[in-house]
């Protein structure tokens, strides 16, 4: 039953990912690859859409993955799943334990979780980078270096850095995505 599975997988994603949208990407990626809901390439494309449309990235991803697997009901099931744990937990906190963060145990738990989230995001970027730039998925699979992708990556690094120096703040994801779309057409056509 695809609806139940979508609901449960996104319920798990909603319940165990800390740090908001980017913190949720590692587990979302793992899950969609594991169940074969999207290929890595599709996942990245969908992520680009989720970043360049308004709204929370996690909701956007859940809706899209749900729709791709089970139409409107699928997207409802996935979105409900990803929202429900937050909703219940925050209700409990707001109603009963507003000083939750002042407990020593909670603080100690989070002192381990915070660096873990940073590492999960970095490791995900690293494995996706290996895959996109030099075609390495696993050590057995061989590799395929894509010099154009590496050139685009270098230009994005440079462009992002220049924009940051010039405007005094990091460029928005949409600016970078538009820039990369232009570079993609330039390099690959």
């Amino acid at each position, binding site marked *: 039953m695809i609806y139940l599975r979508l609901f449960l997988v996104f319920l*798990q994603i*909603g319940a*165990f990912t*800390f*740090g*908001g949208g*980017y913190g949720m990407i590692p587990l979302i990626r793992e899950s969609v690859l594991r169940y074969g809901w999207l290929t890595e390439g599709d996942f*990245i494309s969908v992520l680009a*859409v989720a*970043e360049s*449309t*308004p*709204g*929370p*990235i*996690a*909701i956007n991803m859940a809706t*899209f993955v749900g*729709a791709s697997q089970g139409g409107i009901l699928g*997207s409802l099931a996935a979105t409900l799943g990803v*929202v429900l*744990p*937050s*909703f219940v937990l*925050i209700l409990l*906190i*707001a109603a009963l334990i507003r000083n939750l963060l002042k407990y*020593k*145990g909670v603080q*100690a738990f989070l002192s*381990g*979780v*915070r*660096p*873990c*989230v*940073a*590492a*999960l*995001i*970095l*490791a995900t*970027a690293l494995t996706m980078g290996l895959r*996109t730039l030099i075609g*390495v998925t*696993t*050590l057995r699979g061989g590799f395929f270096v894509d010099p*154009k*992708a590496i050139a*685009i*990556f270098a230009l994005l690094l440079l462009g992002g850095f220049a924009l940051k120096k010039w405007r005094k703040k990091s460029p928005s994801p949409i600016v*970078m*995505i538009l*820039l*990369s*779309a232009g570079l*993609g*057409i330039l*390099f690959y*056509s």
Partner: protein
Amino acid sequence: MKTLRTLFLSFLKIGAFTFGGGYAMLALLENEFVSKKAWLDKEEFLDMVAIAESTPGPVAINSATYIGYRTAGFWGSLVSTLGVCIPSFVIIYGISLFFDAFLRLTYVSYAFRGIQVCVVYLIASAGVKVLKNLERNWLSRCIVLAVVLVMTAFSLFAVRFSSVFYILICGAIGLALSLCRKGVERE
């Protein structure tokens, strides 16, 4: 009733016009509920942000539920959460209907090869940003290094290990370490 409608419309607006996820929303939320409507004071807003960031789930949903509840109880939290989700849901569902056909256009497919590289760049820079905000201590350094190495190695050797476990293990390490410290202090 009027409060519920205002909450719903405010969150609908915020859901429809903030790009880039939860953190981008926080500035808008503050403007709307602290500066304009004064439904929350500055201090409670900061408490809310700390809670939204430290509990699982999307920051936007956490904030909507919290602010909704503090303003109008259970129904407040329900309409706020619905409001912040609906724009995403409608827009993305609409896009998903013709996304495959869209990707098959030649120039779009070229553009997306560039965009895929950009997504890697964006995730990496988000990771670096989170890294910079960490407390600088040995626990953080060791955990970051260990998790990056283990997770990358597992993926290269095709070992399946859910990131849920990394989070639970690291949380347990944090707890254990603080208990040890307490034990040492007592002696």
